[in-house]
């Protein structure tokens, strides 16, 4: 649910917080735990704070996966070379946007 512009963070209930959480993550820098508007709420609702911490931990670790890469087997390049030498393969895919 999009975050309403008139949301009152002082009277926020956990169910509302859960509904707004995707937008809270997307609209900020991904660090909901550092959002000053939510400091009081998270302090009063430790389970919500735990959820935020866990989701932030997952997102932070996901970024580190970008640095990890695996190699394809040698047969991939052999197949590419074979196909290019044959010169015939379908061309029905879109270009990148």
């Amino acid at each position, binding site marked *: 649910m999009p975050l309403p512009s008139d949301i009152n963070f002082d009277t926020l209930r956990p169910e509302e917080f859960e509904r707004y959480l995707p937008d809270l993550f997307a609209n900020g820098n991904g660090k909901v735990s550092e959002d000053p508007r939510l400091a009081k709420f998270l302090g009063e609702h430790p*389970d919500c704070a735990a959820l935020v911490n866990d989701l932030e931990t997952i997102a932070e670790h996901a970024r580190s996966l970008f640095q990890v890469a695996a190699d394809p087997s040698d047969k991939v390049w052999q197949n590419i070379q074979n196909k290019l030498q044959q010169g015939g393969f379908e061309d029905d895919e879109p270009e990148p946007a």
Partner: protein
Amino acid sequence: MTQAATPAKSSPGLFKRNPPIAGEAEAIEAAKNGDPEAFSKLYTLHKRRVYTLCLRMLGNVSEAEDMTQEAFLHLFRKLGSFRGESAFSTWLHRLTVNLVLMHLRKKGLNLVSLEETINPSEEDAPKRDFGSRDPVLASSVDRVALERAVASLPPGYRMVFVLHDVEGFEHNEIATMLNCSTGNSKSQLHKARLRLRELLRENSEITLAEGEAA
């Protein structure tokens, strides 16, 4: 075919993570002119990133290798249309993502799975309770555990999570690629993270139980 690469336009997400590679621009221009050694160099420079992207999106080594092959074959055909308006690696990433998405849409089973996660059924959706503070989750999120958990996500959840959290695409870019709204992309990412939280908590509980039994 010999047009010089123009300065890369700033692109959200990926570009800042894909700085120019030494010798890449020369290899691109030479490959455009049909130099097989230059194309081989482009393959060497980018095979790991392309293959890893395919592997994370598909969760299957054999399919990932097939799609890596397809991505480079299409690169060979499309290279002449690369104008340097974005970083080459970003452009190649998008080409690969488009190919993988088209591949999934062509496969009936995966198409259903993808749509299920764009409009997930209640059974597939992650639990909506907050759970309690798990003191071991942070320590249990090592790379191997997270990779394993990501691989076990439903295809649509995995797609949005990999594109946003791992590859750095923005929600509006993902929405365009998946033909859904940005709100839907945000929602699916959130559900993917919730599901990962469940999987990682289960994993940590199993690890604890095994430790106690030993």
